[in-house]
């Protein structure tokens, strides 16, 4: 009903405006005012000044933005290649600001300076090969530099030498959570396939593969500082993207395929928390959260937790309704802390065995195994596929 009223009001309003315009038009009859709807000298003048004003707006807005929002931009990178990445970014931005500053001034200033008038005549100036050459060759040189520097950095980041000492970790994506798998002492990940997913074996690891015996799966990623980590990425269902902004790292997770990305973390979570910019950011965010909490409490809702900084792994490829909440905490430890943390983690193989044992213990007195199989379609599918694979 309200919406109908709103529509009626809007319609009536439009009719009113229309009528007013008509009345306004009628009052103009006999008035000698020029109304060809083509820009007059006066229009050119006014619009020319507005162009100049817009230039001022553009500059003030850009500088204002840099002061107001500049601190939001990701700060000190926490990976070895991070500074190289940031360096290339700074150089590119320097070029961008330089070109932007000059071209926008010329464009808007010319629009103001050469605003038309009846007694003016434009200069007939059709082409100039020398000028064309200059502004072809300058971008060529600048871009050649950028391309070379960019490719050099890209190659350094993306290609991992075979003999390099790395720790292999698998990142496993699914709607809407992450898991990680450590390759254990042998530093080789055991084979895995979605067809082997069953019960606690959520990543479909082949428990019979010798390389899989020491694999460990976790839902909170810990990595040791100073060690190069080679991430192998897999997806269980659809495309996801493992985005670790503080490490300047990102790679898609593609079902049916293993992708790779490697980096060396250079700052533990604790060290990062002590970075002045992070301290400031956190206190700023906590101020915002405190304000919100006050509001929530007044409404009788639960308060927000105060924020402490943590590295995050985010999903950055549209992956479904809850895409916006697909995250995993990353903790960078000192190597000692990391070893201590990893030590008491159960291997996947053991977890599967224990699970089977406990299930058997539960099932024995109650129901026949055949029935359980029929009820659980997943188990049937996996068992069949396993058979097929063996063939």
């Amino acid at each position, binding site marked *: 009903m309200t919406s109908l009223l709103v529509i009626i009001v809007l319609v009536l309003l439009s009719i009113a405006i229309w009528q007013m315009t008509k009345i306004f038009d009628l009052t103009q009859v006999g008035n000698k005012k020029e109304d060809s709807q083509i820009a007059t000298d006066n229009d050119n003048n006014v619009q020319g000044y507005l162009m100049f004003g*817009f230039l001022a707006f553009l500059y003030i807005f850009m500088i204002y933005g840099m002061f107001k929002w500049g601190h939001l931009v*990701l700060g000190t990178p926490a990976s070895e290649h991070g500074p190289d990445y940031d360096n290339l970014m700074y150089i590119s931005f320097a070029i*961008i600001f330089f070109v932007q500053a000059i071209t926008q001034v010329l464009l808007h200033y010319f629009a103001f300076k050469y605003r038309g008038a009846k007694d003016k005549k*434009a200069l007939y100036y059709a082409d100039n090969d020398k000028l064309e050459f200059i502004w072809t060759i300058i971008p060529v040189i600048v871009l050649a530099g950028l*391309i070379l520097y960019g490719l050099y950095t*890209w190659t350094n980041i993306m290609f991992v030498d075979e003999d390099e000492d790395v720790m292999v970790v698998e990142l496993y994506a699914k709607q809407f959570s992450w898991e990680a798998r450590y390759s254990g002492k042998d530093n080789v990940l055991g084979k895995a396939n979605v067809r082997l997913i069953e019960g606690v074996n959520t990543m479909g690891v082949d428990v019979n593969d010798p390389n899989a015996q020491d694999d460990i799966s976790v839902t909170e990623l810990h990595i040791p500082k100073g060690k190069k980590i080679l991430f192998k990425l897999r997806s269980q269902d659809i495309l996801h993207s493992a985005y670790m902004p503080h490490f300047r790292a990102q790679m898609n997770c*593609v079902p049916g395929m293993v992708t790779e990305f490697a980096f060396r973390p250079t700052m533990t979570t604790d060290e990062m928390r002590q970075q002045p910019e992070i301290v400031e950011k956190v206190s700023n965010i906590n101020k915002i959260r405190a304000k919100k909490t006050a509001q929530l409490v007044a409404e009788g809702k639960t308060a927000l937790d105060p924020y402490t900084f943590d590295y*995050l792994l985010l999903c950055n490829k549209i992956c479904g309704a809850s895409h916006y909440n697909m995250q995993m905490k990353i903790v960078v430890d000192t190597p000692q802390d990391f070893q201590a943390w990893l030590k008491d983690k159960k291997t996947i193989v053991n977890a599967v065995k224990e699970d089977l044992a406990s299930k058997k213990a539960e099932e024995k007195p109650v129901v026949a195994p055949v029935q359980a199989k029929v009820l659980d379609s997943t188990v049937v599918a996996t068992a069949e596929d396993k058979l097929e694979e063996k063939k």
Partner: protein
Amino acid sequence: MGAAGHDHDHAHDHDHAHHHKDTFITKYIFSIDHKMIAKQYLITGIIMGIVGVVMSLLFRMQIAWPEESFGIFKFLLGEKMAPGGVMRNDIYLALVTIHGTIMVFFVLTAGLSGTFSNLLIPLQIGARDMASGFLNMISYWLFFTSSVVMICSLFVESGPASAGWTIYPPLSALPQAIPGSGTGMTLWLVSMAIFIASSLMGSLNYVVTVINLRTKGMSMTRLPLTVWAFFITAVIGIVSFPVLLSAALMLIMDRSFGTSFFLSDIFISGEVLHYQGGSPVLFEHLFWFLGHPEVYIVLLPALGITSEIIATNSRKPIFGYRAMIASILAIAFLSTIVWGHHMFISGMNPFLGSVFTFTTLLIAIPSAVKAFNYITTLWKGNLQLNPAMLFSIGLVSTFISGGLTGIILGDSTLDINVHDTYFVVAHFHLVMGISALYGFFAGVYHWFPRMFGRMMNKNLGYIHFWVTAVCAYGVFYPMHFIGMAGLPRRYYTNSNFPLFDDLADVNVLITTFALVGAAFQLVFMWNFFYSIFYGKKSVQNPWKSNTLEWTAPVEHIHGNWPGELPTVHRWPYDYSKPGHDDDFVPQTTPMKEGEEELHHA
């Protein structure tokens, strides 16, 4: 088509004394006249534009004030899509998806290129109509059908397509992954298949017309840059759209007939699917083989329109005519070999990333040439700051601002951390969204008298431009910062990440600019529809332009010119040429004795 119309009731309504007898149906609906088809494209494009823009406002409101209840959500989305006025999270993605699809294809491809290619190609090359009027009519009606199907897809039970406008499988292939990948996605694919057919027919027609139907004296190097842009755009479309069609067909096969082109090893909602051996990366290649040229399909016509309008309103020849053509050709060529820059982190071989970085950054060169040439054209001009001219200058501004950040995104290294963040959103909206939209507005203001024989109100045009210009930067400039803060795009809300809490204010500001900017588009709508009926009557050549379309009578007639077709004696940019009394010399004016061509065409 004629047969259907002749015996219709409305036949008596429009019994003009033309050599061709028009009925209401043949004149306004199944018309084969390029000028009427242009208007049909324009109106359909504007209607689709309203839908697309309203969608963007809805999801912008959700980002700025996450999970709040709005009456407007309840009203427009209904209780099902917005229970209690709170937008559902998958509907958010649906809105993002359909907004992208509608704006890119239906507004900026069909609405822009369809309108102005149809209107201007025959009129500016001196032809009576398109090479095939019938094909042209079919092309429009296929576009119309695809628009209707796309709109219908909004109302299906499981919701419209919601896998992003890039519809990457497996998300787009599996209804288990997101409800929108059910019937909604099927309709999306059907709609796009029809759209592609429409686009191909249109493009073939444009290419054939430009090659074959130029009037006497109209050599390729005397074509206005608009026609060059439309011509090359059509060529790009013919080269790349079929690839998208094949990708769409393969996706349909995967979805409905159990093939595995793009799918492999999938475990979803508790079961393993049978797909084996396909690759989503293949789809990404096929999609972007169109998807990237598509950016230029959107942008080149806008640049062509701008070239024409800037020259006319500067009362100066466009600077570097040959360089402009060369850069259009270079952009067209390069646009087909840069698609991989959308896929640097897709898992393809990093070596390919290097190749695509190289080709991508090369595109900056012809783009820079174009920008500099526009600026030089303004230099020492006698600028007539009509609304069309303001939008053209605005286009150059956003083209530069948005294009420059392409240096960052085109660089595989830098793409790693800003890929799929709001930085990308800011970049492509400025460089192709806003720029192409400005080109569209510029074209409408400039050729409105040619289309409707009336003028649009200039003061409303000025208000429209200035508010739009401020709001466009207001929306997209701050987005660069939140992107560089690491905020991914396509998040329903950012409130699950305390890390992003300090970006909330910026998002509110962006949404506010968006709402104000969109509200002022109503000024344009009003001006447009009011002027069609009540605008000031136009003179034949209001902007004192050189091109042929202004030599045709204001009243639209079949065949465009009453007598013989005009003969062309010079290029279209002899503005303020020394030795002539007027500051413009139409292309039909013969060269004076001893007059030199002062340009190198």
